[in-house]
């Protein structure tokens, strides 16, 4: 084994996170290197959503260590949130505003160039009349596409995608794969949860199985690695 070179993007050690009085995460040990794509599999209630929310600094970790992108989740959630993007079960959009306004708002909040909104929406197929329809009126899949367009436009350092395939139609599912690959190869780290291994595993470097709020297994995914194998093992050890 080589020595630790860079600290990992995600580092959990014995992390416990409580939802109410319930340990949604019950001692997670996990390291994910920068630039990796990791997919979480697991039964309903295994803790996938909780883990992703903890990575976004939304679910406070009450014991153990949790360091995301070099920031402690308890000490500095704000800094983390600036740098991550989350696609959750529910779409965080302003129902009264249209897709363009929503994405622009996200970009302004992130201090990014609002000109990036249009190409992103275009790419996700939010074109024509949909651009000007209040998002409260869009269909379930269209809403999720708007959120993904926001992520794409912002291009955060860490993508957290909670069942991103759910609700998307065939062509967007394909596109999602492309977007994830693009993000990862441009250096971003991507974590996604899924109930559709046949779609998610090919995208991933690492396939991590959760159960009972813990990591219970890991295999490698099908992502064609660009980086050399040495680099790979280094990151894994870190």
């Amino acid at each position, binding site marked *: 084994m080589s020595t630790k070179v860079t600290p990992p993007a995600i580092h959990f050690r014995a992390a416990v996170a409580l939802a109410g009085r319930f340990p949604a995460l019950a001692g997670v040990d996990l390291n994910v290197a920068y630039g990796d794509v990791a997919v979480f599999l697991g039964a309903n209630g295994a803790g996938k959503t909780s883990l992703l929310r903890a990575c976004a600094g939304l679910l406070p970790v009450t014991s153990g260590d949790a360091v995301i992108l070099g920031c402690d989740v308890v000490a500095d*959630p*704000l800094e983390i*949130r600036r740098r991550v993007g989350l696609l959750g079960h*529910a779409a*965080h959009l302003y129902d*009264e*505003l249209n897709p363009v306004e929503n994405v622009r*708002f996200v970009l302004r*909040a992130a201090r990014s160039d609002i000109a990036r909104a249009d190409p992103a929406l275009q790419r996700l197929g939010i074109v024509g009349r949909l651009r000007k329809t209040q998002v409260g009126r869009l269909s379930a899949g269209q809403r999720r596409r708007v959120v993904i367009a926001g992520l794409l436009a912002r291009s955060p350092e860490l993508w957290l995608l909670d069942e991103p395939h759910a609700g998307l139609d065939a062509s967007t599912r394909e596109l999602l794969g492309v977007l994830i690959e693009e993000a990862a190869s441009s250096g971003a780290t991507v974590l996604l949860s899924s109930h559709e291994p046949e779609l998610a595993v090919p995208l991933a470097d690492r396939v991590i199985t959760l159960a009972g709020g813990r990591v219970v297994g890991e295999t490698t995914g099908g992502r064609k690695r660009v980086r050399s194998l040495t680099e790979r093992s280094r990151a894994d050890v870190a």
Partner: protein
Amino acid sequence: MWRDTILVAGKDLRIEIRSRVGIWQILPFALLTLVLFAFALGPDASTLRSFAPGLFWLAVLFSAVLTTQRSFAIESDEGTRDGMRLLGIDPAGIFLGKALAIAVQLAILQVLLWAGITVLFGVRTHTAWIAITASLLATVGLACAGVIYGALSAGLRVRETLLPLLVLPVLAPVLIAGSKAWSTALSGAGSGGTQWLRILAAFAAVYLVVGVVLYGPLQEAA
């Protein structure tokens, strides 16, 4: 912080302009409360005139609660409060932005309510500057206190009932000081009002500072 303030306030006002909730719902509500108070107190014109300042401020208070509720209803759709936090912007900016948007709406509302009491209760305004200063200071105070409590109860399933309970007692000093200041302004006794203006200013300052300082932890708690 200032950029975030403008950003958040702009977004809130844009949603207001699109949905027209303030104009079509909160404003009529405010005028309606005036009428209801008149019903509750009976038809005697001179009684109503003498109570006009108090009733005006009661109407402002209840409308402020509604405006705050609305301001947080647009944030916490689907029962979650993640949205705002995920933006990762300065909490003080969010606080100031939301307060600014509420203050703008409340200011407009007060102009129309003033017209309302002038017409309905037949009052006349003698010392306008006291009334205007009182209203401006009160608006800042109401907006700031409102946002603090709005954030406390946002996204909770009980927010509709919790917010009025929490925020109304806090706003009571505004009710008292505002009524007194307006009483002087309406009766024309020019000087007595300044002590009440001082209270309103103190109130506004306290909640402005409390909000800027505490909004961060508050948002995490939400």
